[in-house]
């Protein structure tokens, strides 16, 4: 029996990709639990359209950077410098936005991030510098460049802004709503808002699900649409094209790839620059969509969270998107309603309990014990308090990351040559 279980785990470890059906079941299960907690605690914002919409908005910058990180790490370059590239994205995005309007902000944000990626690629690929060392240096450099350029560009400007922030970006990235589902317009005709109708009722689970779905259908920024499209595109590029195959083989075994004629250095350059470009796009989103202004420290560690989402998502696009959604959600809750964060404790307790039961069923006693302990601790915290201190709410996403990684890393597999320096012509 134990052998059979072990065997099953081995298979799971060898092929940890999730099928679409699993994904839908997982999301539905989480939603069911969330609605139950919502109904029980009365913390309505736990599943409101507003929360999910905010969660999506907060998830997108992390998601862009996370998808970018896939390209870098799939070709074998660890990209800790993503935070710095994101900072460059925010600065250049704001500068472009202020000078030429929001869409140019997007373009220049991408270019700024790509520039950071290029520096990282030169250091790690050409000169063989340790990836983490180079990344740390780029983070420091990115912050310095943004600060210096702000002083030069805006310190004496007459339109506002200064050493730590930009003037306001004029104009917006347009938003869009789907007709019928989200109440969008069709040739100038205001179509009905079906999901909105559901959310206005208080039907258990149905209204909650409607709120969740409507976040994707109503009042969605074009940049968000781009992000949602980029998830399948990334999958298709990496697993269905020649470019993707060569990129991934570079990250798995550069020596073998090179012997088959794959231009290893060029693939690595491509992967890292792409990753920087997407991180820059994430930064530009923060400026153009979330704030309409650049502020120093605006990225606030989101690049690092994107890396956590990358690992959480097992170096795969859908997983990374789920990971960033998790961060977006806990971030959104703290902004929307404090009591909802308190209710979240109960959700975590119940979730941990379910996973503990599953571990019990799988006879993984130790894991079950630890998870049960966590469930009890969160439940105890929930019943003995009325609210979570605001300082704790602030690090909810980070604590979540740490817990998830602590329990999930056993099933994760990173590219085999990830983080290793490769020199052209090297054997093994």
């Amino acid at each position: 029996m134990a052998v059979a279980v072990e065997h099953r785990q081995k298979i799971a470890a060898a092929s940890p990709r999730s099928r679409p059906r699993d994904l839908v079941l997982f999301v539905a299960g989480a939603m069911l639990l969330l609605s139950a907690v919502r109904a029980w605690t009365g913390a309505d914002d736990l599943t409101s359209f507003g929360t999910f919409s905010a969660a999506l908005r907060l998830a997108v910058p992390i998601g862009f950077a996370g998808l970018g990180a896939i390209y870098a790490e799939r070709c074998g370059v660890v990209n800790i410098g993503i935070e710095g590239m994101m900072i460059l994205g925010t600065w250049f995005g704001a500068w472009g936005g202020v000078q030429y309007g929001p869409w140019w902000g997007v373009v220049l944000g991408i270019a700024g991030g790509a520039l950071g990626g290029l520096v990282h690629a030169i250091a790690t690929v050409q000169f063989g510098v340790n990836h983490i060392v180079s990344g740390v240096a780029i983070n420091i450099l990115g912050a310095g460049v943004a600060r210096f350029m702000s002083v030069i560009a805006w310190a004496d400007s007459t339109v506002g802004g200064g050493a730590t922030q930009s003037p306001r970006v004029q104009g917006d990235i347009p938003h869009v709503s789907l007709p019928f589902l989200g109440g969008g317009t069709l040739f100038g005709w205001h179509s009905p808002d079906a999901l909105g109708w559901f959310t206005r009722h208080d039907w258990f689970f149905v209204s909650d699900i409607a709120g969740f779905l409507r976040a994707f259908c109503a009042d969605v920024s074009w940049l968000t649409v781009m992000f949602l499209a980029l998830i399948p595109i990334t999958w298709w590029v990496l697993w269905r094209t020649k470019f993707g195959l060569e990129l991934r083989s570079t990250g798995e075994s550069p020596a073998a790839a090179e012997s088959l004629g794959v231009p290893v250095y060029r693939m690595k350059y491509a992967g890292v620059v792409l990753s920087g470009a997407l991180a820059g796009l994430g930064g530009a989103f923060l400026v153009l969509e979330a704030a309409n202004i650049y502020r120093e420290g605006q990225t606030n560690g989101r690049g690092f969270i994107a890396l956590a989402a990358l690992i959480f998502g097992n170096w795969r696009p859908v997983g990374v998107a789920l990971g960033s959604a998790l961060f977006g959600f806990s971030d959104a809750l703290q902004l929307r309603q404090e009591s909802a964060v308190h209710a979240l404790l109960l959700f975590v307790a119940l979730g941990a309990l379910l996973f503990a039961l599953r571990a019990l069923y799988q006879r993984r006693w130790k894991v079950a014990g630890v998870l049960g302990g966590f469930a009890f601790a969160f439940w105890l915290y929930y019943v003995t308090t009325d609210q979570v201190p605001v300082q704790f709410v602030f690090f909810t996403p980070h604590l979540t990351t740490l817990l998830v990684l602590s329990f999930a890393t056993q099933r994760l597999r990173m590219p085999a040559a990830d983080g290793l320096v490769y020199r052209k012509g090297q054997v093994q």
Partner: protein
Amino acid sequence: MTLSWPKRFGLLLLGPVLAIAFSVAISSIALSASGNSPTLAFTQMYHFGTRLDSVISMLNRSIPLYISALAVAIGFKMNLFNIGVEGQYRLAAVVAAAAGAAVDLPAPIHVLFIVLVAVFVGGCWGAIPGVLKVTRGVHEVISTIMLNTIATGIAAYLLATHFRAKNAPGDLVIKTKDIPKSGWFPNLNKILDKLGIDVVTRAPGSELAGFLFVALLLGAGFYLLVWRTRFGFDLRASGVNPGAARASGVDPKRMVVQTMTISGGIAGLVGISQLLGVFHRYTIDFPTGYGFTGIGVALLGRNHPVGMALGAMLFAFMDRSAQILDLNGIPKEIVVIMQGVILLSVVIAYEVVHRLTEIAELRAAAAQTAAAHAGAQVAA
């Protein structure tokens, strides 16, 4: 085959010299492009930075950077990346400040007590990523980054609730209670006086932090620990070749936890120089960022106690001497760019020098073999 020492020394210095020259070049371009004069900027920085009060300030500024670099470097020695120094020292500083204010002890013991609390808190917080790595396989880079934010949140929570001192009317600063005088670290002005440096007239108000001694001791201790003990040997062996270290009986898991704990313990001391020498309490605007700059200093100094001391002083000198620039209408943020460029180019330069050394060593070895071969033929 090793090279002669002048050659090795020259190659060792080549990296930093190239990096500094490159950063001067890049920042000159940036300054010129923004309509400022690089020559004016650098001469101003030099003149201001070499004044006595600036030198004292530079030394004081270099203390936390140096300690932070030591904390990072001990991890680097076995390829462990402790990005979490930032959180470790902040949490340690707030708890040490509160603990120091809560007790009343005779002077030296009081200081020792605060220092030990800081080391303990930093060590415990540093141990967490170590334990997570060996038991759950969580990479320390990610866990320490997450723990930084968590530590910042916990520190802010403690400061706002349990550790908060009652404010006098009109005083809005959130802070811990003051540490009594017995818990202050004396400055070194008397020693400077004995050395014939007249601080009172030449740099009134300047105080050379006494914690400089502790930093130097830590540096010496770092050297002894890493190069003169069994633990240090195991540490370096695990860094260079984990497989070989393991085969020779080093328990990699224990090494990871021990190293992260020591690293965190050292990190706990980063904020203590200013806590005991300047502020005597933890406020909401306690200096931040030493953890990240410390990583830079460790890279610059190649994890060697002497190299890191030079690196810390270089960064501190740049920070201090840049203060003059704003008075001349030159953005002082140029030094942040300089520091970033130095960092990035120094790691590249080290790598290039490393490759050059490899080639030179190969050549030297080949030449020697050839000579020996020729000698053998002659003898035959």
